[in-house]
């Protein structure tokens, strides 16, 4: 009698494509997922409100730029297209007012 592969709990749960948390090597959380291509996934700004994105809100904007002062791409910030567009104009206005740097030297 042929030995059938019995579905295990693990197999049943997998359903469909994509990685799930069991594919993660321990301690490597934050990488991976579909389409992430190894790009470090940033903090999820789930409680971000649209009105908070403002050129006067320097403290918030600082979270979205690198040490050098460059904007993070959307794949890293993980925020919606609308938010990212507002963010971009806000950062540009803040730069004009010298609230944020255009370029920052890495030493400081």
């Amino acid at each position, binding site marked *: 009698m042929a030995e059938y592969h019995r579905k295990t709990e693990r197999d049943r749960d997998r359903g469909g494509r994509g990685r799930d948390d069991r594919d993660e090597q321990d301690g490597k959380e934050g990488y991976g997922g579909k389409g992430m291509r190894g790009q470090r996934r940033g903090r999820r700004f789930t409680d971000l409100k649209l009105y908070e994105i403002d050129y*006067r*809100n320097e403290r918030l904007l600082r979270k979205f730029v690198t040490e050098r002062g460059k904007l993070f791409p959307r794949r890293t910030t993980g925020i919606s297209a609308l938010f990212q567009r507002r963010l971009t104009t806000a950062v540009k206005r803040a730069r004009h*007012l010298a609230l944020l740097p*255009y370029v920052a030297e890495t030493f400081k």
Partner: protein
Amino acid sequence: MKLYETTFIMDPQLLEEGWEKAVARYSDIITRNGSIKRTERWGLRRMAYPIQKRTQGYYVHMVHESAPSVPRDLERQFMLDETCLRYLTVVADNPMYLEEMDRRRTAREEAEANVTIAPAATESAGSSEAAAS
């Protein structure tokens, strides 16, 4: 009439007197064809990069409801004014921001007021406050 936000940075060397004069001068331009909703003095602060060899600037932020000629008039004056390091006028597209910040500020102030009253009332409140800070 539209709601505008104008922010400008004055030379820190003008000192208090000069800044107040500048605020009065620009307020005057606005009130000729509009009304000022609020004037915020962010004060002397370090700029992210030097402008005209200055590392600090005196920031003033104004919200005003004005005729479209006002931003134009302001811009002309800002450009002539050599003590103005930078200016920015935008149509107020995010009125909720200031409302929310005001709301948070009052909430914070109320909380602080409560904290200052509490230690006087009980001994334990004072010690827990010290632990928190």
